[in-house]
């Protein structure tokens, strides 16, 4: 049973092991963050198989470009999270994904449409919905669009017909509220 114990390392250990290509680092990263990263990916790409393929791509990129990570630019998770989201957004906008979306099986389609209309509830996300709904709706909408749905803040402002400054302020207020909640 000890073999299935989750590996957990400190940020410094993780970074140094990752840079020296110690496989323990990637195992630890998987144990600690695979769920969080898949959560982000799944908000952009609802299709489970595609989302998991993207998680795989994310870890490969983390492993292969570990040398380019610079901790003065930000925390490791921020870096990984940006990799995951950028891969997801690239996928969302790619031709083959748009085509494959059109050619989905009927049963997959039902799930896909349901997921898009938020009819089915993902048990893994239920607790989060409570947390997010505790945010003021105007903060939540903007934060979800930018953090989870792959919108740029400029796109979000256009989509919501809001001045760019208002969107920035709402992002800041939303994050401050989250910080309060977490502390």
């Amino acid at each position: 049973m000890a073999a299935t114990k989750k590996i957990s390392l400190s940020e410094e250990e993780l970074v140094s092991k990752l840079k020296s290509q110690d496989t323990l680092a990637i195992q630890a990263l998987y144990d600690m963050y695979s769920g969080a990263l898949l959560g982000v990916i799944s908000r952009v790409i609802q299709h489970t198989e595609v989302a998991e393929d993207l998680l795989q791509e994310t870890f490969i990129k983390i492993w292969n470009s570990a040398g380019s990570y610079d901790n003065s630019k930000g925390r490791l998770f921020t870096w990984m999270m940006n990799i995951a989201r950028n891969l997801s957004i690239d996928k969302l906008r790619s031709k083959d994904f748009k085509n494959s979306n059109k050619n989905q099986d009927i049963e997959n389609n039902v799930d896909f449409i349901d997921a898009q209309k938020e009819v089915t509830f993902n048990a893994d996300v239920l607790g989060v919905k409570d947390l997010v709904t505790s945010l003021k709706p105007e903060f939540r909408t903007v934060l979800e669009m930018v953090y989870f749905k792959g919108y740029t803040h400029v796109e979000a402002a256009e989509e919501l017909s809001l001045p760019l400054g208002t969107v920035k302020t709402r992002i800041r207020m939303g994050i401050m509220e989250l910080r309060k909640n977490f502390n």
Partner: protein
Amino acid sequence: MEEGKAYIESGILELYVLGQLNAQEQLEVQAMASTYSEVKQEMEAIEIAMEKYAVQNAVKPSLGLENRIFERLGIAVPEIQQEAKVIPLNAEVKTNYQSKIRSLRLALAACAALLVVSLAALYSAHSDLGSARDQIASLSADREKFSSTVNYMKSNNADLTKLVAMANDPDWKTIKLAGQKNPNDNMVVYWHPKGKQVMVNTTKMVLPANDKSHQYQLWALVDGKPVDLGVFDVNPDTNHILVNMKEIGTAQAFAVTLEQRGGSPTPTMEQMMVMGGV
């Protein structure tokens, strides 16, 4: 300080953390963060909040994904991990069985030892019981012998006491009977005419022992006619000194004949052993 605070409040750090800035803007933020520690601290606080937010929004990957990813990475880890998952389990099961077998063996050995001890205890208890039984048997035999001795002595004592009483009582008459066939034969009859009691004394009796098919019979001669007074045995093992015979009030003489066992209605005169007059 003021510049740093204003920079924080502009909201650009949040956009930086969310990956919303272009390369030029990113460099600016990084420069500010390395200049102002409060900017750096604020940035980290935002990052940690977003990290927690993402962790709370986690979606669990399917089970096989981890191995697929590690395979793609060409890391030997998954196999090691898989082995690590399997081997200890096997070893655990094996050691489980082994320890189970070991404890079962121990239990078996303990049972066997217990059985041997039990058998030994049973055997010793059995032989103890046997000797106890023997002791009880010999004790009860002793007790029987003792009680028969006591009974014998009691009756002897009663008879002797009676004899003493009889000797002091003038109403008791002692009649000596003399041998008829053999002059050495003799015996004594005690008679109480008023009480009509007749007794013979086995200790004062010299007669050949009778066999099993014959008994001695005592007769009283009353006006020339023999009257049956009962039978008695002569043998050396007799318990009693005095033997009660049938009652008679008047008699001129007593005689004893040897008759068939149980006695005869009339005396066989040829077998007249002793006789004595009153």
